[in-house]
């Protein structure tokens, strides 16, 4: 067990190093340096800049040294909790990312809080009797909602609940302070898109368990149906959905980008996109590393959880 976690952590560290190196390599190109210059000095000023002045500007910004030197400097900064400053917003990256991450965290919390019971419940009910009417209804709804791209779901819920029924605002930028009503549509969009996938996986897992021979054994032992489901089936059927749900964290970091941009929600995904479009190198680096970190940690949790839940592996 310890070995598993240790090797996974080691792998994660390796991945983070590779990723951050890659990022530095990418953003070391002249194109991006120029982009930063344009962003800071203005396009006109940059085009008027002589070669020498540009070099001087680069030196002032510390951009003229080889990328590995910058990498070493940046890495030691990271070790001391200093992620650099945002070029665009002129703020420390750390506090910027932390603030946005908190906002996305709130979003994610509600998404998971609604999605987990909904998808597990529907998936189990559908999988208990494969081919039944309930199963077919759940399966159809699940395929249907997962087939709607988030952008389409976002548009549909906005048109219906904000523009049509006027129950909630269509914009979630929260410019006038925190407003939970503005959270409704982003959460709804993400839940609608995601629950179907998890419900389908849960259903498949439950259906497989229900056709297994040990469930037949349990029924033919004369156990009450409740006991067969609750004690014999669920434990085994929920192993796969558990890992899938944890891995949804990774997916959510993708999903929030479009939802946050569409609803103007000041979260992590929007930060990432804005930084990318602006060329705000340190912000992109920090955000990407955070995203990769979350993804890898969720993978470790899912692996470890799978092992813990599955005695066949735990004591294998």
């Amino acid at each position, binding site marked *: 067990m310890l*070995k598993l976690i240790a090797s996974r952590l080691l792998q994660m560290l390796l991945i983070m190093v590779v990723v951050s190196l890659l990022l530095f390599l990418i953003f070391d190109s002249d194109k991006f340096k120029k982009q930063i210059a344009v962003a800071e000095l203005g396009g006109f000023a940059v085009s008027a800049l002589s070669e020498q002045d540009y070099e001087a500007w680069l030196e002032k910004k510390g951009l003229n040294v080889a990328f590995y030197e910058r990498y070493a400097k940046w890495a030691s900064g990271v070790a001391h909790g200093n992620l650099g400053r945002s070029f665009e917003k002129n703020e420390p990256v750390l506090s910027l990312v932390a603030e946005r991450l908190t906002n996305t965290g709130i979003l994610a919390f509600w998404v998971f809080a609604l999605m987990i019971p909904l998808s597990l419940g529907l998936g189990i009910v559908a999988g208990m009797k494969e081919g039944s009417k309930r199963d077919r209804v759940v399966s159809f709804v699940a395929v249907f909602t997962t087939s709607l791209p988030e952008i389409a779901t976002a548009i549909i819920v906005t048109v219906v609940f904000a523009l049509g029924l006027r129950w909630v605002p269509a914009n979630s930028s929260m410019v006038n302070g925190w407003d939970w009503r503005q959270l409704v549509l982003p959460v709804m969009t993400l839940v609608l898109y995601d629950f179907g996938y998890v419900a389908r996986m849960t259903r498949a897992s439950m259906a497989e368990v229900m056709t297994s021979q*040990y469930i*037949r054994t349990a029924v033919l*032992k004369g156990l009450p149906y409740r006991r067969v489901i609750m004690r014999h089936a669920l434990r085994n059927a929920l192993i796969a959905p558990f890992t899938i749900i944890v891995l949804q964290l990774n997916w959510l970091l993708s999903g929030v980008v479009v939802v946050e941009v569409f609803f103007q929600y000041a979260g992590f995904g929007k930060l990432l996109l804005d930084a990318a479009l602006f060329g705000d190198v340190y912000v992109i680096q920090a955000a990407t590393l955070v995203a990769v970190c979350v993804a890898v940690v969720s993978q470790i949790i899912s692996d470890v959880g799978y092992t813990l839940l599955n005695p066949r592996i735990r004591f294998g």
Partner: protein
Amino acid sequence: MEIPVLECRNLSISYYTRQGEVPAVVDFNLRLMPGEAHGIVGESGCGKSTVALAIMNYMGRNGAIVGGEILFEGRDMRTMSAEELRQIRGAKIAMVYQEPMASLNPSMKIAEQLAEVPMYHEGIGEAEALRRAEKMLVQVRLPDPQRIMNSYPHQISGGQQQRVVIAMALLSNPRLLLLDEPTTALDVTVEAGIVDLIKEIARTTGTSLIYISHNLGLILETCTRLTVMYSGEAVESGDIHAVFDEMRHPYTRGLFNSIPLPGADKNSRPLVAIRGQLPLPHARPAGCYFAPRCDHFAAGVCDHRPLPMRAVAEGASHAVRCARFAEIDWAAATLPHTPREKVLAGELVLSVEELTKHYTVESSGAFLVGARRTVKANEQISFAAREAETVAIVGESGCGKSTFAKVLMGLEDATSGRVQLGDLDLANLPVQSRNERTIARLQMIFQNPFDTLNPSHTVGAQISRVIRKFGVERDPEKVEARLNQLLDIIKLPREFAHRRPRQLSGGQKQRIGIARAFAGDPKVVIADEPVSALDVSVQAAVTGLLMDIQRDNRTTLLFISHDLSVVRYLADRVVVMYLGRIMEKGSTEEIFAPPYHPYTEALLAAVPIADTSVRKRRIVLSGEIPSPSNPPKGCPFNTRCLYMMAGTCDAIPPPQREFAAGHVIACHLPRETLLAMEPVISIAPA
């Protein structure tokens, strides 16, 4: 009058599929009295397991009982409510399944899975239930019940799992115990232990048994009455001795003719296979389902229904479903024996000297670097095979026979030793480094018919590839001619060349596998359990074919098998292996007669034989086969050996004792003890 424990009257069961209703069992009758043990025997697809599940009233989503009734202690189970059924299941009728591992819940400890039976049926407390469970584990003779109670199913061996399932079934003293192929997934020496336990249960508890099996020998050992099923219906039923000695249905007789009983011999009394194959459920003939395969078919008599079960004599319990049983001369020599000349072995073709194969596996430890362990898959294997000779390699799982085949074929390198084919040493010559001629000279037939052919390509394409690859022929017309010739040899129609594997039956696939192996005129063919996955009647046909081709080509056959009956029938010489080592080797006669290695002796005693005149000594090994990654010190067999001498057998590897030229036993026992052994099998005069 005593009420039968179970009675099936005109039971019919169907499955509903996309093709519509498929009858799985038709007009099935059974009367089981208290304390009786009834066998149901038949090949795969005959509906025997469906009967068992119907008795439990567990038909799945697309199955249904469409006619007849099932009376349990006089009450029709079809009219019972779900709650009544639940109270009977597991309490009055209990079941033991074919695959013990799959039948136990992988995420629950054994203790809980056992204890819940009395807790839910008798409402007793958990502590009391656990106490009963542990007591029951002792009764099914499991060592260290405390440890087993606290284990998960995957932590104990297959034989132990099956004992747990049996204990689970017995916990509430059922009136009826259904056993559905309970030993099929187990090794033969482990099987013998389970069969012994089942016999003891039947004797001591008075529980009625229904024992379902494809193996006639097992039925003979465990039951007093039996029903033979074919294609969804019972064709013969009665007292076990009546059916075994005076069978009155052509199918039953065909079945007995196709299994290698001790009297059979490949030269003087070859097996006779039932021709054709089992009809698909929706393509059954109009009259007798066996008619197309029957030698006694008579138009106008056998091709219409109704065809009821009829008693062979007034008032007899022995009944058959055959319109002509009274007209057939059962005493006549039904076996169209065509004795053949014995093939004389030629010169030495293959010799294996001190072949050793070790693997290193990394075991998962608690630390970052796992401990490395060595699996000794093969240890000092030596034997020789001559032209046109059949050498059988016999052993149970973990004996290293598959590894041996891989080394021979060049898929694995030997750790040490030599494999001499002609003047070439193959031990460290991987297949990529062998030339085409060498590869073609050494070919293999594989075990699993469903795996042996590539499902994506036609049969013809797969054989043609071999013909071209080995350079037998290059010209497309000649390749096709050779392909047709091969199809003729394996007695399949030529148009099969255009079929894909999924359109063939298991036996047909195995035939194609044989054709593929012989396409390049091999000198040596390794057959890895080529018939073990096939039904008995098909087995006989495929082995017969294999032996014919071998005889015509004077090929050397290395026949890997766990089935001693088949080995006795077709092998010239036998090598007995256990945990990677040779225990005994010699000619077939020497192996099957004393002196024996203690393992050979136990193996012989474990094989069930479907012949009422055969007497066997009772030798039941305890325990399980140890893991090859952690074999016992000294003689690998010492942990289970009945002659174990502490201090010697568990410390020093056994010496090789030669009893005749080529007959070698690796054992510490003194020569005299080995020589004084009595035969395991004797045939009582009829």
